[in-house]
């Protein structure tokens, strides 16, 4: 598994490199937006570990890297990393195309697991991201989609899955709690990720706009 680490702090990069599991090969590092875009094009890694706050480029940070690597999004998967899990940051990178988000405080084992999940095409949601999603789609106020393909609201099952993730359940635990398979949990999460990226709910637009990401 080939991984590129993009972060402007060299200590963090080397720390992460040392912490990742065997079997995950770090093929390169980049420290700013332009460097990241070049490295992604040259190396085409499986997964890019992308810091949300990056210097350089036009000041758009991680989301700008994603936008400028748009052509490669079906081959290269992005996992966003951030110290500040503020809604604007997280929603911004996810909408720009990242497949998941974890905090920098996560252990090496957690990051490795997330990298593998993203490489397999799954979405990685932290409890906090699940909380944002429930908030953004008005789930607490009882809004619910009538049809699966509706983009602006969550279905009852999706809401249930998000709620369990926000409560600190791992996918496996969600599956046994809801008597469904892990694969089904993963497909629900992927569906939510798609909605998060494509929905035009004004909450999402406003969050992204707050970071000038649209």
């Amino acid at each position, binding site marked *: 598994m080939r991984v590129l680490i993009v972060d*402007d*702090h060299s*200590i*963090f990069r080397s*720390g992460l490199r040392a*912490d990742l599991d065997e079997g995950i090969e770090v093929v390169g590092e980049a420290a700013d937006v332009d460097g990241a875009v070049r490295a992604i094009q040259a190396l085409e890694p499986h997964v890019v570990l992308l810091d949300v*706050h990056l210097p350089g480029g036009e000041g758009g940070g991680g989301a700008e890297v994603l936008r400028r690597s748009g052509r490669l999004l079906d081959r290269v998967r992005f996992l966003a990393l951030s*110290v*500040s899990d*503020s809604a604007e940051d997280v929603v911004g990178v996810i909408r720009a195309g990242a497949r998941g988000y974890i*905090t*920098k*405080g996560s*252990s*090496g084992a957690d990051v490795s697991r997330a990298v593998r999940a993203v490489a397999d095409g799954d979405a990685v949601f932290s*409890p*906090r991201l*699940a*909380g944002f999603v*429930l*908030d953004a789609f008005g*789930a*607490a*106020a*009882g809004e619910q989609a009538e049809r699966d393909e509706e983009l602006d609201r969550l279905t009852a099952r999706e809401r249930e899955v998000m*709620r369990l993730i*926000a*409560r*600190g*359940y791992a996918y496996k*635990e969600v599956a046994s709690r809801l008597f469904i398979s892990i694969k089904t949990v993963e497909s629900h999460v992927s569906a939510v990720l798609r909605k998060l990226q494509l929905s035009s709910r004004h909450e999402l637009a406003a969050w992204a706009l707050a970071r000038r990401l649209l």
Partner: protein
Amino acid sequence: MLVAGVCAAVARHLGLRVRSVRLLALVLTLAGGSGPLLYGWLWAFTPHEPAATPAEADTGARREVPGAALLLVLAVAAALLTLIAAPSAGERLPGGALETIVASSAAVAWSLGLDRGDPTRSARYGFVVRTASAALLLLVGTALLLQQPWVLTTIAAVLMLTLGVVVLLIPRVVELWSEVIAERSGRVREEQRAEIAAHLHDSVLQTLALIQNRAEPQSEIARLARAQERELREWLFAEPGVDPGDLAVELQRYAAELELEYPVRFEVVTVGEAALSSGALAGAAREAMLNAARHAGGEVSVYLEASPEELTVFIRDHGPGFDPAVVEEGRLGVRESIIGRMTRSGGAAAVRSSVDGTEIELRGPRA
């Protein structure tokens, strides 16, 4: 206080004794008469000192003489004189025209310069004085223009009309100007804060995250770094107008306290509209968090969902768990402080425990 307290103020300002200042004033008055002039000047222009006590305010000095109103009366008299003298003035400037200009301008100047900072003069009073002065100037100016237009009268009239219009506009301009100034300084402050926040974010917050990563998960260092990170984050992303009595804020705060005391890491996620904490729900949630910190430790998730009707809190740990059916033995906390408290307050509590951990669910009506 003999007249208006000017001597006392001067004495305090210069660090002299009141009596010697008064003596000096008396000498100046007797020798040449400049004492009263100086006194009046100081009285008019010295900044008003707020009274320290209500009693002092009662006996305190005020600029009792309504200078602006007196000047306005003077201006009215001069204006009448001008209007009477104008038809027979011929080529000369009618008597009183200059006096009208000077007196009404002085009234406006007094109102803007002195009365605005004086709490005993209302804004309405200032407005009336200024509008009346402007009206007077416009009236006399127009009247002069309608007379035979000689050079001097035309100049005086145009001057009056201009002054009148300016006086009417001044308060609005002053207001706009102070708005611009306030807005600019507010923006500068906001920019500075954003800059500091960005810097702290890129340096300190990253370092704190790194320390937590490198240190043993439950070590003292990791916990301290986490507490500091939380504090800094709170400051960086503080949302203005968040009620400190908000249940979400309270749970965050309590989580931070527990993290310092026990080897535990709380992840607090909140969803929905802000909610005031009802006493019972907050108390039960705190008890559940304390239990999790004490008996389980490690990673603990706290999830608060605030729907329009009710509040739900989940506290989940990954400890060894216990059998809720036999909670009698010593774990009074769960039965009394959590389940009992919730049912008494019209809510509900449920405990699910297994080898994978314990989850406590609390449900209560919105406060």
